């Protein structure tokens, strides 16, 4: 997710989160296993989002028995911390097919610390409350706790950025320009 945003530093970008969702007693447990980068630049148009959602959902189901459990979004401006219209639209589309989707919004202020391997969260988790997407909180009537696993991820990310692997990230947009490019990015995290 961070590498996708690093590749497109001056644009907003988004993607889908693939994983599992289970109920354990009163707790709804969502485990994000993978992220699929979707688009960068102008994000507001529906058709290719629908194509991407269908293909990623199919792949998740067939390959790994998983589903699309959420999405991520990086705003264009460094000082923009809001869940804007485009982030909301993709999150709502995912929520229609998921029990309780999550939206991870990139923390633009901390974004530049990724190269230093910061252990501070670079994304903030949001869940739907009524009509709005609100930042996850462990308090309130529907507490939400978000954890980053494994704890070695920040160090690995810093190494990847140092090697400039992020410049080779392929998103669904790139794939639509050239179908030989793989939006699963198998060689990036190999």
């Amino acid at each position, binding site marked *: 997710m961070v590498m996708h945003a690093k590749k497109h530093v001056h644009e907003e970008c988004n993607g889908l989160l693939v994983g599992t969702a289970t109920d354990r007693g009163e707790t709804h447990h969502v485990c994000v296993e993978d992220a699929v980068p979707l688009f960068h630049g*102008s994000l507001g148009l*529906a*058709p290719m989002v629908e*194509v991407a959602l*269908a293909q990623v959902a199919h792949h998740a189901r067939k390959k790994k028995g998983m589903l699309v459990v959420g999405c991520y979004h990086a705003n264009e401006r460094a000082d923009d911390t809001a869940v804007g*219209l485009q982030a909301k639209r993709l999150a709502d589309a995912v929520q229609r097919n998921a029990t309780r989707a999550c939206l991870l919004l990139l923390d633009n202020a901390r974004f*530049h610390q990724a190269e230093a391997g910061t252990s501070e969260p670079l994304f903030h988790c949001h869940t739907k409350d009524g009509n709005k997407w609100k930042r996850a909180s462990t308090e309130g009537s529907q507490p939400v706790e978000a954890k980053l696993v494994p704890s070695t991820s920040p160090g690995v990310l810093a190494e990847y950025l140092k090697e400039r692997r992020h410049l080779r990230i392929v998103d669904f947009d790139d794939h639509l*320009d050239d*179908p030989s490019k793989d939006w699963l990015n198998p060689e990036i995290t190999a």
Partner: protein
Amino acid sequence: MTEQVRNAGVRQSGFVCQYGRMLVEQSSKSVPKDELYDVLEQVSIAAMDCGEEDLARRCVNDLEKAFPKSIRVSRLRGMLLEMQGKFELAEEKYSIILERDPQNHRVMKRMCGLAKSRGNVPAAISACIAYLKLNAVDRDAWEELADLYVSQGMCKQAAFCMEEILLLDPFVGASHRKYADILYTLGGNENLAMALQYYSSAIKFSNGKDLRALYGICLCSTHLATAKAYVKKKEEDELHSLSSDLILKMYRARNKNGKHEIVKAVLS
């Protein structure tokens, strides 16, 4: 290398910043005199893009020393102020330039960019419209305005902008496809039927290679096939079938990583 990037008109700020820094630090030794100022301008903008304030400041200072009364350099100073978050000072700078030269199109565009930097999209839209009133044939500005409208969910207004672009440049497939995307997003049988036509033109102009437009045809025809109060046309089924076949042919030929199976399953 920086000259190649300039001539190609592409935005490769990271690359320009990395190599531009070296050029700027050795300016008298490695860059011909007649190119030096172009390089300084180019590197200053790339540095602003990458958040390299010291490099940007150095380039702008050097340019100001060489051209103290230049409007072009003054605009760069305004952009540096934007980068530093000093938006009011940047706006003052641009306003002074516009008093001297009210139709300075680069600075008029900067007013739109400044509003965007401040997160004020309605003001950016107004600035863009003001610019287009004086420069109605600027295709890129119409596209910028279309994107601003789309970002606000104002697809009807975005569609109008694309119609202006199509009048200016009727043979660009990407414009037909983007107009179709906006019509699809607006929704409704009439818009979907029109989107189908514009996706078809996009495919024609791209010799059948525009994958997005091919998918667009499949999406439109699928929705129209089950739409209420819509008289289906026979050719819509044919279009769907032809487009699906072309998509699958493209994937068979170019995709070695298993996406063909996913696409086949989703299209069926």
